[in-house]
């Protein structure tokens, strides 16, 4: 797949939703240990709602469609990760201003915008043991792949993003939680990946499922 068109957007998000459906229990279990146990449910509900939101939305601009969809998602699941992911999508969409489809460069911009949205909403930095460590790394590695080869395909950039997401998630295993309910569990978090970062990887995996299929 060389690009994701306006018409294909619902399918892209359908693939992500499917990933969350499969990983919901696992995410809940992780969040139970380090937080309040709702993460899988909110991700499933939030991403599960996106295809329908996009399908029924009256909006002809590619970038704006994604922006608005992200905002609607925050209203659907206004938990920490719901806000972060919705804001990320919204900012990712904003970064696509002027585009009419998602190509290789678009994916890089989208992921960088997504990460910027997380920083905006979460007031967090890399290394704080959050979803940002996953998505940020995915964006970095996607950008690096494009820098290395200006004509890299969407698939190539997507593969780089997926590898980066995995790396970023892995890196959280040695980080100390700073935010939210997990902060009080700081001592038991070592060696375990941050649940938000894990949820970030699930999203990138879902995108890759669709783009690389």
């Amino acid at each position, binding site marked *: 797949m060389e690009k994701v068109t306006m018409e294909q957007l619902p399918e892209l998000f359908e693939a992500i939703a499917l990933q969350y459906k499969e990983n919901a229990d696992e995410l809940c279990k992780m969040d139970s240990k380090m937080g*309040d146990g*709702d993460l899988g449910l909110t991700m499933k509900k939030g991403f599960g709602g996106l295809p329908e939101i996009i399908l029924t939305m009256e909006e002809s601009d590619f970038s704006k469609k994604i922006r608005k969809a992200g905002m609607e998602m*925050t*209203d*659907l699941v*206004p*938990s*920490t990760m*719901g*806000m*972060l992911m919705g*804001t990320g999508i919204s900012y990712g969409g904003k970064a696509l201003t002027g585009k009419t489809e998602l190509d290789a460069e678009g994916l890089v911009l989208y992921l960088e915008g997504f990460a910027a949205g997380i920083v905006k*909403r*979460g007031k967090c930095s890399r290394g704080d043991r959050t979803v940002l460590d996953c998505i940020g790394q995915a964006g970095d590695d996607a950008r690096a792949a494009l820098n290395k080869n200006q004509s890299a395909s969407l698939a190539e950039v997507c593969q780089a993003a997926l590898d980066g997401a995995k790396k970023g998630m892995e890196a959280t295993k040695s980080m100390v939680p*700073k*935010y*939210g*309910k997990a*902060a*009080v*569990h700081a001592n038991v978090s070592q060696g375990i990946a941050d649940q938000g970062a894990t949820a970030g990887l699930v999203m990138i995996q879902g995108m890759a499922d669709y783009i690389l299929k």
Partner: protein
Amino acid sequence: MKKIMNQAENYTDDMLKGIYAVHGDMVKCAANDLRCYCTAQKVPGKVAIVTGGGNGHLPLFLGYVGDGMLDGCGVGGVFQSPSGKQIYNITREVEAGAGVLYLYGNYTGDVMVFDDAAERCDMDDIETRSIVGADDVNSSADINVRRGVAGIFFMYKAAGAKARAMGDLDAVLAAAQKAKDNTRTVGFALTPCIIPEKGEPNFELGENEMAMGMGIHGEPGIWNGPIKTADEIAKESCDTILKDMPCAEGTEVALLLNGLGSTPLDEQYILCNSVIEYLKTKGVKVYRSWVGEYATSMEMAGASITICKVDDELKGWFDEPVHTPFYTQI
């Protein structure tokens, strides 16, 4: 699960229907959304104060919407944030030309939601300021990441009084900040509560065990162990507070003795007596006390002790009459 309810997924909305049915003369909802809870008695030109958070803490948060306190409240599902859109819709309904103060508890999800709402308001040229309650001493050594618990009552009271006196937005924020700076809380739990949709206790404690410092959603505290006597609990809690916020001999404080849900009022007064007596030995004088359920966790047993150092200005704000469907002070 021993809950008086219909479908668990309708828990919060059924509750709200009851509240509107009983108090429809004083409150109403905005945007046709039950969860956008607003005063029905808007005061033109007054700074509006909006709060919000997860349900399951009645009378917190919505119970303080009314004359002399708050103007609106976003009601989330049980222990879930309301949405930014809901806070925005409430803000649109209650803002009365003098700007809006967002005053809520320091929980990540809520912070994000209120920030989101503030941005939406900014686009509409509605001025907002934000401040979070973060009074739970045992939740962190870092004063900025502490959880907000019952102490927010004093912030509501101070900000509400200032707004009612037609102070401007910065003055109302400053009143909330002053109450915040002087307020500390220590709480403890004896039994868990049950989130309706989950259907099982949200933590476990052994028979005869208590958890010191536990949060109002079951966040872990600093120790679990056999229940202590009221005198011992009072001493330990006050020592924690006084270490964090020293009170010179002769200091006057306001005291909020809050039951978490299933602790009998009898026991709250027993503990209150222990606290007053202990503070006496430290030369700290209780100016005024509030005893009862002010911020609960459904059927959780336990209590919290909140102390606010008061000067004449804070005393004045705290003594102001207020009238809401859930709390009346004359």
